[in-house]
């Protein structure tokens, strides 16, 4: 649904360009006021798993950013505490090259439970940032399968049948991971949903594979698709409203950034204390699809 709306806007943009196919483009320099340094928090707690929190600083807007600058963005000297109201878990620094940034904070005491509320406290650079999230009840997918797209040889989308429980206010986020090809779960293209459009209904939908970074320079011949032979784990999560708002606006920004037809809008954060980013709880349901 969201994908279609997005496409509509891309078409309109395309239509414009069609008429100005000889429009001219040139590099310009833009004076942007210096922005203050901010802390970016990307934290999550999955059902039956320990919380993990990535901490980075923001980047200046222009110029070339190389590896040393990127390493400098990673905040290494923070105190990160997650609590469920009773138990406190101080997250430990962990290194895993499969993630970006490869250095992050991971818990070892608290594991996510359905219906519980989790409090995050981050102390860094003399400031304190806080946030709250909950893990909603996971909702299972009725069935999942793979289907080759017409005009494609062996590439296609994943499909799922789903029944939304009655009552509005259910929000979902979907990830997939191709065994051997992906090292981590990657959100699908247009990963965030609100049941406003399908409240209480049973329906089927397709999943277009997201890429781990849309700014990647290497061209992926399987872009957007899954391939015959892939074994894919689908991770369908229930999330709360704040998580929905963050990812809705963040994905809006990721897909529409630079599109002149969109009004730029700030990503809605749930971090208190002047930080950027999100703290989200995921009610996880997983399923495995063998593409054939």
């Amino acid at each position, binding site marked *: *649904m969201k994908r*279609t709306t997005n496409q*509509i806007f891309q*078409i*309109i943009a*395309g*239509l414009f360009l*069609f*008429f*100005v196919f000889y*429009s*001219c*483009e*040139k*590099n*310009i320099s833009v004076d*942007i*006021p210096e922005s203050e340094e*901010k802390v*970016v928090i*990307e934290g999550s707690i999955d059902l039956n798993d320990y919380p993990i929190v990535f901490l980075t600083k*923001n*980047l200046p*807007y*222009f110029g*070339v*950013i*190389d*590896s040393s600058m*990127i390493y400098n963005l990673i905040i290494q000297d923070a105190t990160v505490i997650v609590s469920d109201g009773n138990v406190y878990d101080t997250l430990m620094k962990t290194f895993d090259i499969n993630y*970006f940034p490869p250095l992050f904070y991971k818990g070892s005491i608290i594991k996510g439970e359905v219906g519980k509320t989790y409090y995050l406290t981050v102390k860094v650079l003399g400031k304190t940032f806080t946030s709250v999230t909950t893990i909603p009840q996971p909702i299972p997918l009725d069935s999942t399968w793979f289907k080759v797209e*017409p005009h494609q040889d062996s590439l296609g989308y994943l499909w799922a049948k789903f029944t939304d429980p009655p009552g*509005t206010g259910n929000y979902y986020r979907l990830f997939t991971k191709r065994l051997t090809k992906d090292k981590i779960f990657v959100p699908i293209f247009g990963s965030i949903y609100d049941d*406003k*459009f399908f409240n209480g*209904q049973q*329906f*089927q*939908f*397709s999943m277009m594979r997201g890429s781990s*970074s849309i*700014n*990647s320079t290497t061209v992926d011949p399987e872009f957007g698709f899954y391939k015959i032979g892939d074994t894919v784990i689908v991770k369908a999560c229930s999330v709360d409203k704040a998580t929905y*708002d963050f990812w*809705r606006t*963040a994905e*809006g*920004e*990721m897909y529409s950034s*630079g*599109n*002149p*037809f969109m*009004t*730029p*809008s*700030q*990503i809605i954060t749930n971090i208190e204390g002047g930080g950027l*980013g*999100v703290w989200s709880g995921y009610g996880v349901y997983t399923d495995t699809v063998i593409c054939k």
Partner: protein
Amino acid sequence: MLKRITLFLSFLFLFTFSIIAQQQQKYTISGYVKDASTGEYMMGANVYMKETMKGTQTNQYGYFVLTTEKGSYTFITSFMGYTEYSEKVNLTQNLKKNITLQEKVITKKEIVITGEKENNNTASTDMGKVQMEVEKIKTLPAFLGEVDIMKTIQLTPGVQSAGEGNSSFYVRGGGPDQNLILLDEAVVYNASHLFGFFSVFNADAVKNIELTKAGMPANYGGRLASVLDISMKEGNNQKYNVDGGIGVISSRLTVQGPIKKDTSSFIISGRRTYIDLLIKPFVKKTSAFKGTGYYFYDLNTKVNYRLSDKDRIFLSGYFGRDIFSLNQKDLSFKNSISWGNATTSFRWNHVFAPKLFLNTSLIFSDYKFEMGATQSEYDIKLYSGVRDYNAKLDFSYFPNTRHKVKFGMNYIYHIFTPNNATAKTSGVDLDLGKEVKLYCNDAALYINDEWDVTDRIKINGGLRYTCFQFTGPFERYILNYSNQVIDSVYYKKFENIKTYNHVEPRLSIRYGINELSSIKASFTQNYQYIHLASVTAISLPTDIWMPSTNIVEPQFGTQYSLGYFRNYRKNMWETSVEVYYKDMKNQIEFKEGSLPEDNIKNNTDNNLTFGRGWSYGSEFFINKRTGKWTGWIGYTLSYTKRKFPEINKGVEYWAKYDRRHDVSVILSYEFNDHWTFSAIWVYATGNAMTLPISRYIINGTIVNEYGPKNSYRMPAYHRADISATYTGKKHKNYQSSWNFSIYNVYNRYNPYYIYFQTTGSILDYHIETQAKQVSLFPILPSVTWNFKF
């Protein structure tokens, strides 16, 4: 409320009293003025008595009434470019005169702004008023040879273009929805084709254009900023005429003629583009645009019939569509978009007595936007629009030469269809909510008097009473604190949900310092009950028209304007300076971060947020009206701000169309009877825009953090165009002309938009960002051939 009604009544009383007080032995000359060769009735012709210099102008339908003391006079009728009509009259009784004016043999296409009495600039109470004649606009440079009256309007001070690729205009800091655009009295909701590259008005079918940006008289209402009143030609009632033109991207054809000579006539005028056909051969098979087609067309028709000396009827219609289609087999993707206006007006002019003229109108107006898209299993349809049924009674009463009174009433039934969508996946309907339509009653009563108090002082005052009612059937969705829909309330058919009542005072005063100069001041208040909510940063046909509801309060505007007007060298030069301040309450915007899909299964107005706007500025204008060289220079200095509690953290910000400096220079030189040369130069401060100030990494992807809203300025816009028009010899039955235009002569790359391109990836530990400016049109020559037989 009571206080306002009392005000209204005392105004009526005063006005009646002043008329009675002036009853003396007076007689009236009344009648119509028309063009001898076409039979078209002429608006704005001057009618006066040479001895007293007392006179008037014909109204929109070519009708005039002149009341003066008993006596002998030289009765004069004149119109720029026509031979003056002069007759000795002995006024001992009421007279009826229908006058025909002959066009001067050598057409001097001297001036562009015309149709005024020689000193109308200083003598009338009109402020911020622009009248244009289409024949004159046609000699100016035109973009791709398409004569565009909307673009010419934007060359006058105080009227700003929104930039290339945007035909909507901004008047004195008001938004594009604050302009009332009328075509033969029917409201045109979207005045542009192709996302604003061309306007919907086919210049061949248009007779007159009048723009009012200050001191709006009480017979107009419903918008804060301006009225653009366009009248269609009536059709030649003397002989058959065919004229047309062949241009680079489109062709036009107009046929007109008498149905019954002197009594009735018709005109039909059509236009269609052929960009799609021209471009097709150049689109590569592998191109993303393969299977893409686009065209627009429009059709104007009008029939008029003179039943008697006292009655005339007119029936006019407009129909236009933009059609875009895309069919990509490889991606199994199909899409079609169409949008456009349809209007019909039926009008009846009746002269009750020479002093009392009535026009009755029944008007239908419809704007539609439809889009359908299919991709593999998905199928989506989106549509929106506005439909109006409108009835109007407009009386003109001319008690004596000192008063011109207009009064009347207006009722409109609006049906709004904000974004509605239906979607299917694998044949199953997705629930996108019920079809939403909004129903409104919109009524107005007005009275307006143009009063010559003394020879020096003129007052144009009026009151307009408006009543707007939002009625059922309607389903209101109730949101909780975090904007989730939790409940809904249902209103029955015709159930009154919300009513607004307001009185709008209008006042303009002119004080003549001497023959050549005058000071004018105006104060107007307007309410606007319908709004255009724009999801995107520029105007697109996807923008949604919304009525005032129980959530959206009407926009309320107050404007103060002051001007000094002076003519030089026997009115050859007109100059003016005007200053204004404008306050606009209840302006609307979408909430920050709202996306088009938020309107689905919700009420659009639940996603809106409200604030205040204000603007002030000054306009300088120098116009040379006659001679071989004609043209004008307009300069506007203006400031426009907005303040919304929920936008930009509640801090005031520059409006998107805040324009510090705006300059237009128009020059026209008539070399001889065949050749006319013209040039245009425009300069405008860049648009305000929001820029990213820093970026950060989320999920391995770089996202932007934006700076304060509209705190950055794009580079300035400037451009020069030139044109040469060659008018061929006038043959007995045939005449043709060529227009050669060059758009953007010095090939300036004006910013259309700015975007940022990021290359590299965070996973590769290398990222580079570059700002890029996209410009639309480089230097573009064009040729148009026009013919007439």
